[in-house]
């Protein structure tokens, strides 16, 4: 199937004919960055199920989003012009991040999926009442999880995705119940509350300012997506972070002064997300480095073992 699929470029494929798996994946990334859409979806992780609504608009190149929980206490996260605000059930709100003036949705330029995944087209299916292409991404090494994806045949947006463990069990799943490709959303729909309390404050808008996290080892195919330096309200010390992605899997390395956190060496997990911390001693100063991401535990341990902090003459 993989060989057959590779012979059928997406652009030239006749209607209803399966496109090439890798071209479809590139289209998937582009579609997500460019399309406005709305829909309801189910999310499952670690045995918990929740239903959510997503509205996403791309207006003059700016991305606006509203994600609402449909069960339990009403809760929303809204993104507007570089700011992410969380609105709580009691109507209070928290500013989660702000990158005023900086491209808030600066995507990793890569749209390809690295060779560390074997991509196979699994034929046609249906999700949310829409024709879909089924894709299987199998890792060629043990450093990442596998994925099953269902892409909308019309828009190439992801209609359903699963993160798989080594036994093809779903560690996490997202599935659209409905999708509207013409939601007619305007900026005013994403108005932010004006009195949002700050959870974080930017230490520097220059991502190259301050100490740099140096991963001594990364699994092949991973590249840096973004990094920044922030303070958490109520805590002392700057939190440095660097996020790495292979196009599907993502993890973030955080480094902070040891005084503000004590690592216990335990692995913490929710579905595919692991959290692992270890002490880091450098330039006669003590830090704690924490990895949070959707990678196998052994990958997290190995990455964390080789992290250092370049303090630049500090």
């Amino acid at each position: 199937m993989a060989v057959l699929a590779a012979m059928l470029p997406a652009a030239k494929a006749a209607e209803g004919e399966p496109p090439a798996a890798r071209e479809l994946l590139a289209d998937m990334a582009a579609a997500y960055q460019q399309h406005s859409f709305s829909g309801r979806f189910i999310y499952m992780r670690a045995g918990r199920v929740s239903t959510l609504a997503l509205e996403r608009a791309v207006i003059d190149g700016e991305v606006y989003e509203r994600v609402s929980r449909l069960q339990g206490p009403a809760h929303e996260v809204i993104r507007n012009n570089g700011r992410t605000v969380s609105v709580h059930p009691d109507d209070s709100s928290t500013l989660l991040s702000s990158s005023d003036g900086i491209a808030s949705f600066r995507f990793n330029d890569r749209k390809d999926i690295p060779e560390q995944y074997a991509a196979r087209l699994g034929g046609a299916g249906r999700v949310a009442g829409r024709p879909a292409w089924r894709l299987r991404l199998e890792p060629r090494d043990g450093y990442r999880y596998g994925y099953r994806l269902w892409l909308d045949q019309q828009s190439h947006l992801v209609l359903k995705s699963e993160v798989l463990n080594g036994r093809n069990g779903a560690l996490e799943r997202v599935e659209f119940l409905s999708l509207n490709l013409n939601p007619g959303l305007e900026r005013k729909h994403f108005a932010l509350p004006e009195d949002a309390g700050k959870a974080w404050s930017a230490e520097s808008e220059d991502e190259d300012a301050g100490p740099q996290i140096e991963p001594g080892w990364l699994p092949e195919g991973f590249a840096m997506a973004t990094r920044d330096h922030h303070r958490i309200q109520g805590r002392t010390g700057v939190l440095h972070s660097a996020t790495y992605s292979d196009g599907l899997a993502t993890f973030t390395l955080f480094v902070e002064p040891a005084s503000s956190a004590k690592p216990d060496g335990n692995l913490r997990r929710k579905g595919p997300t692991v959290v692992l911390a270890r002490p880091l001693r450098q330039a006669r100063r003590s830090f704690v480095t924490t990895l949070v991401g959707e990678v196998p535990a052994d990958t997290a341990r190995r990455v964390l073992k080789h992290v250092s902090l370049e303090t630049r003459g500090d």
Partner: protein
Amino acid sequence: MSGYTQQEALSALADDEAGELEYRRILREFDDEDGATWSRWHLARDLMHGQDSVAVPRDFAAGVRRNLGKGGRPAWMTGAARLMVAASVAAATVVGWQFWDGATTTGAGQPVASNLERAARLNASAGEAALVSGGQQETVDSKRERSVRLPREREQHLNNLMIRHSDLTARHTGQGITANARLVNLESRND
């Protein structure tokens, strides 16, 4: 290296149990009549569990939210009107019985674990319960594979890092939908 640990296998097993049942039921109900029965399904379960159920406009009007936050119910949504609205409006349904990762929270406005959740937990084996016990601190000692409780402050800090990671992933990679789902559910836990 194997790449997959026993904890991960257990977590996947847990996903196949209570969550899978719930997942299938939501899908089935939504498929039926293009989701028109979805609201009714929520309402029926709410009544069964003695909880409030309110159909609200998709943008969660602030007034409704305030009322919900106070534990009350909008005046217009009583009796037959409530039933009609819930059954006919193509809108979000806010129910109180299910709470993501919320069994540990005890703050004002937080629902306690539902009967369904409790039943699911009772049905789960002890090994699974250690990993999915109502969203309790899912900490696994990497060597001894046992559940570990973290100090509240440390737990909160790690949760903040997970929120931060999810926000960065949503904004800077192509995996935004899943990352947004993680973010909303992590944030909700802090309420």
